[in-house]
């Protein structure tokens, strides 16, 4: 068959360029369509991966463990002990990549001029590292040295609101385990910047031990946040941990942040819909252009028949031609999409819509993310549907009656 294949290929390729202008026009439509598919997919994927990573990085992690009442009422009363054999053992699970224990309670921060309520988070800086946004978001000063670090880290926006800055002292006030007011002065050793206003103004970070000392607790925390090696094992691990620690509340990120999950799911389902829409938009053009080229080559197809080429060969010729066109469009479309994604660098800045973005749990820079799955989907939609679509013009070509075809002027 190879002799026929090579004949088909060379015929198809040359026929493609018989009417350069026409081919270029439809090629442009295909390239534009493919670009739109991939670029949009990259944008949506960027959005959803941003939502996912923001969700996970914003102190959520993949899984969180709390005391039963904590999520409803996140106060000091709802804490749990870390020196719990059962808990300790169940956290010693091979699926777990990293854990971080935190004290996380409401507090008040006071500067010389302003005061505001927020959430005070005590962390072990080493365990937290790589797990949440904090270390990578430090823009001034330093990260916490250890659990006993006497300094605190606050957000840039919060610093602006409090009219304070790096190196200054502020007073943190909260309630200890007996609901007594406790307060202390802390020096600001680091400023973080996350683009998310709610995070920047709503949280301050200090050493875990420092926070426990302030609250008069020992080896007790508000939450344990867990990062997995493989997110696919999340449900399994949640179930295991919950079963092993019935007195605690174990939840995955999707339950903790249902909004993020729903948005991600919506974006996911929109991919295919959008691809189909774009394909339909260019599908009419592909069929039309192929039909034009088939009908103006009627005599040629008659000639093929008279030379003893079977209808299947003629069909194949048109089909290969359109497949070549599609592949060329895909090739260029992919390259241009790739290039345009690279050209956007870190993503597009939508800070003009900052407050709206925050409502959707999004930061102000949306990166473009190309993943294999989306590329495969976009390309398959075009090539599979494209080949299916070109069956019609190809079939039309093969149905031409040779005697009519050849004698037609």
């Amino acid at each position, binding site marked *: 068959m190879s002799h026929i294949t090579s004949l088909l290929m060379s015929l198809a390729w040359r026929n493609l360029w018989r009417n350069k202008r026409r081919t270029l026009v439809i090629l442009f439509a295909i390239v534009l369509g493919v670009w739109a598919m991939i670029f949009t997919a990259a944008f949506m994927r960027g959005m959803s991966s941003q939502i996912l990573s923001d969700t996970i990085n914003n102190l959520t992690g993949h899984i969180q463990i709390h005391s039963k009442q904590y999520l409803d009422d996140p106060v000091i009363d709802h804490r749990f002990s870390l020196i719990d054999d059962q808990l300790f053992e169940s956290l010693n699970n091979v699926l777990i990549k990293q854990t971080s224990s935190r004290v996380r309670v409401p507090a*008040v921060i006071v500067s010389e001029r302003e005061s505001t309520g927020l959430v005070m988070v005590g962390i072990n800086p080493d365990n937290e590292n790589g797990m949440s946004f904090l270390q990578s978001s430090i823009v001034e000063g330093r990260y916490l040295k250890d659990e006993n670090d006497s300094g605190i880290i606050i957000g840039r926006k919060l610093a602006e609101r409090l009219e304070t800055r790096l190196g200054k*002292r502020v007073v943190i006030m909260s309630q200890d385990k007996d609901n*007594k007011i406790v307060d202390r002065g802390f020096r600001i050793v680091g400023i973080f910047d996350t683009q998310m206003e709610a995070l920047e103004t709503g949280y301050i970070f200090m050493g875990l031990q420092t926070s426990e000392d302030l609250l008069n607790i020992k080896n007790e925390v508000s939450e344990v946040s867990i990062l997995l090696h493989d997110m696919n094992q999340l449900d399994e691990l949640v179930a295991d941990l919950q079963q092993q620690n019935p007195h605690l509340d174990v939840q995955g990120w999707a339950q903790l942040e249902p909004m993020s999950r729903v948005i991600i799911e919506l974006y996911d389902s929109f991919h295919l819909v959008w691809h189909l829409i774009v394909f339909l938009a260019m599908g009419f053009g592909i069929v039309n252009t192929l039909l034009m080229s088939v009908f103006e080559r009627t005599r040629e197809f008659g000639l093929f028949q008279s030379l003893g080429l079977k209808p299947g060969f003629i069909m194949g010729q048109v089909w290969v031609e359109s497949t070549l066109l599609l592949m060329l469009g895909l090739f260029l479309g992919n390259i241009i999409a790739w290039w345009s994604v690279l050209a956007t660098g870190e993503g597009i800045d939508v800070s003009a819509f900052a407050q709206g973005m925050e409502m959707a749990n999004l930061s102000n820079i949306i990166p473009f993310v190309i993943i294999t799955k989306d590329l495969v989907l976009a390309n398959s939609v075009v090539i599979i549907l494209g080949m299916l679509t070109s069956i019609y013009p190809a079939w039309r070509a093969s149905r031409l009656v040779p005697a009519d075809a050849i004698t037609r002027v």
Partner: protein
Amino acid sequence: MISVKLKLIYTCLLFLISTSVNAVDARQLIKDAIDHFRGLTSYSEASMIIHRPDWQRSMDMKIWTQGLDRSLVRVTAPKKDMGNGSLLIDDDMWSYTPKINKVIKIPSSMAHQSWMGSDFSNNDVARADDLIEKYSHKILETRQQDGVTIYVIESVPHEDAPVVWGKEILTVRDDHVLLEHKFYDQDGILVKQLTTLEIKFIAGKNLATIERMQKVDAQGEWTEFRLHHIEFDADINKSTFTLSNLRNPRF
């Protein structure tokens, strides 16, 4: 905000009820005053005036104190605030309102709410006794004026003190009347100041009877505290400062 009011009064008392200064060590100047004051009880009647460019309001109150840890305040006027009371025991605060005949414990998140319209910020009064222990003091200047010695003391809070100020500068007379208390931010800029406007000899002592707190960047807005009557070593014991007495209109 109740708590703030309470602490404000409390702080004012600290400076109003001062005794003579025998030492010239800065820390001692303050410590002596406090030590002398601690262990003492007092009963006083005072009023507070909050002034704004477009309005002003005044409130009369009775205050019982024992040392620095306990105090009970009862509002006596105006009529609609009459009977409101506050109780401070150590760091815990309760509030009572006759309107609802109920005692409410003030949660920590509220304790630092800024007091609406007042020039007294909660921060400068958060820990009255901290002024001795959580600060380093030094005398900046000693001068003679109108026959009395005036000390200017600089108090710098310790690193972990729950104080937001960079430094506080107090001007104290040798008879322990506080003339001025300035609050500086951590850049050394004056944020607000408490000034004594009137000194009288009452209850056997020279006392500041009118003090005014004013923010530097808000002219025309101030809060004044006026002392009308005070008795030292009054018949007050620890059992005065109870939740049931907070409800009790006798106090």
